[in-house]
């Protein structure tokens, strides 16, 4: 049985200290790269690759928080992001005179709040279930939402959805400009990353991981495990809503197709592909996914993108349950010729 602190590999020799030092190097280099990235690349690379990776990574990060720390695999994270996007259109207004036309500083917080509330409700329903049932109920929630927006004309404008959605001007900064939008996405993604990383050590996050590992013991210790799980859903919902807001601004439109089964599963693929043991995983997964999405067609010809991504996903889940991060860990351990220093145990 894993202890609640098993996220860090613990070794008694000097490797840990060396690891921490090299990690810091890594961090500085990464931050520097992320900051100068838009300056050395063009519009397509900045928005289509850079910003999209950050946005999808943020939504997948919310799943990583639930699945990695909470042990709850939810397929409805994109639904929550989609609801936030829809609410931005409904409250803020879209092209063709649709929406209520509230000012952005009211519409955006309202949209995030509605989506977070919805995520909490999904949490209340789904924490009654466990394991596979959670996946099924959240998949059902996602599909029900898809069919609902497809049929509802009064609020969600049915099949057509909303178009002409653009980020507002904030303090005179034009968010519609590629570099500004990229930095805005970077700020939100960085906020989410730090929040989730902080949670892995904060009392709430530790309790959540303990609930994942042994709910019965935590209940015996006097923790309200249902409340912890619902709170995790609410927090993950907030992150997903932020990602959904960025996504709708990047695409400029939202329609039932944006919250259909395929994008729902994409978020799961992204999180699992990268690895759900560390918050950096979803962003790695998102980068691979976005690169494949944009360049797979040129590599293999035709439009069999789904076959390629499905096969890659299949290989990853068959051979490395912890995604690319797990592959990296195996590679590193083999290189050092020492047994794996942290045994990850999963809850059944």
């Amino acid at each position, binding site marked *: 049985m894993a202890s609640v602190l098993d996220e860090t590999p613990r070794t008694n020799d000097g490797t840990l200290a060396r690891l921490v030092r090299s990690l810091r190097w890594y961090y500085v280099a990464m931050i520097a790269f992320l900051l100068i990235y838009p300056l050395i690349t063009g519009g397509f690379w900045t928005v289509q690759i850079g910003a999209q990776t950050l946005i999808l990574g943020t939504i997948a990060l919310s799943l990583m928080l639930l699945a990695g720390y909470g042990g709850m695999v939810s397929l409805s994270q994109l639904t929550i992001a989609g609801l936030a996007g829809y609410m931005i259109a409904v409250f803020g207004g879209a092209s063709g005179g649709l929406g209520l036309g509230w000012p952005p500083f009211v519409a955006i917080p309202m949209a995030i709040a509605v989506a977070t509330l919805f995520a909490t409700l999904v949490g209340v329903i789904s924490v009654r279930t*466990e394991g596979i049932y959670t996946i099924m109920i959240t998949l059902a929630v996602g599909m029900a939402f898809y069919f609902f927006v497809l049929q509802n004309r009064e609020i969600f404008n049915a099949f057509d959805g909303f178009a002409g959605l653009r980020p507002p001007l904030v303090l005179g900064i034009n968010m519609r400009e590629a570099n500004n939008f990229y930095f805005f996405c970077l700020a939100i993604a960085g906020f989410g990353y730090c929040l989730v990383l902080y949670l892995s050590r904060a009392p709430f996050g530790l309790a959540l991981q303990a609930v994942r590992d042994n709910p019965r013991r935590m209940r015996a210790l006097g923790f309200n495990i249902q409340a912890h799980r619902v709170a995790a859903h609410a927090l993950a919902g907030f992150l997903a809503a932020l990602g959904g807001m960025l996504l709708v601004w990047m695409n400029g439109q939202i329609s039932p197709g944006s919250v259909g089964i395929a994008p729902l599963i994409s978020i799961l693929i992204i999180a699992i592909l990268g690895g759900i043991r560390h918050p950096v995983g979803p962003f790695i997964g998102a980068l691979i996914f976005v690169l494949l999405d944009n360049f797979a067609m040129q590599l293999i010809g035709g439009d069999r993108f789904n076959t390629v991504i499905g096969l890659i996903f299949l290989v990853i889940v068959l051979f490395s349950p912890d995604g690319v991060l797990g592959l990296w860990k195996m590679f590193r351990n083999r290189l050092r010729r020492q047994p794996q220093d942290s045994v990850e145990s999963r809850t059944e």
Partner: protein
Amino acid sequence: MTLFLLTLLNGLTLAGLYFLVASGFSLVFGLMRNINLAHGSLYLLGGYIGYSTFRATGSWELGVVVGTLSMAAAGVLLQYFIFRFMEGEELRQTLVTIALSIVAADLMLWYWGGTAYQFTTPDWIRGAVSLPFTPLRYPTYRLAILVAAVVVGIALWLFLNRTRIGMMVRAGVDDKDMLAASGVNVQLLFCVTFAIGAGLAGLAGVLGGSYLSLAPGEDMRFLLASLIVVIVGGMGSIVGAGIGAVLIGLTEQFGLAYAPAYAPVYTFLILVFVLAFRPQGIVGRPLQS
């Protein structure tokens, strides 16, 4: 009154189709705890293969047989090459079968294209019959689906409760290790059960392709329907799948007939209601954790 009766019959025939798909899903889960989220792909692939057979030979009956048997074989392959290596790992099974269903959906789209196909049913079930005591005439084929579902349901029940293999299957649901210890080849039993479950999906694919149509996206529709039916009815129970199918089929059709704007939401409300008051499903047993 006519609308009510027609809706009732439509709901029951749809329930018959849902039962055929969901009972296979439920059987596989009940015995082996295997989560096969590629079950919808088996439905659609069975339908497509049946359709290609039908086009090549002109025989609808042969299409039914080939569709069913090919998916039964696919089920054995799935059990032998995939599920055998990940017993008890629910999350991995889920992810692997999702990956398989993505690849399968894309390859089916590649081979059969995006057009919708529909079978032409043979003469003996074409046309409509007059229903006794009512002025209605109802398509024979739909009634045939209903009959097929009832027959399959009774056969499954008899198989599970009255035969030696069925007894082993039920013993396997309760305690797999004990069953293996008493000399039963559990792997073979698993393959047989998976073949039945997947074969039922293939059968439903051909029958559904004659009633609705075969098109990309139907795999997900029937996967979702199976999920909801077995969650509402109770996992691993044939009776539960039957109750769930009738409830969901009727809800969908009555919703469509009387308040079409929010039809998908009613099904979902039933799901939430059941999960709130009876998380194990209507006839399901509580999970042992």
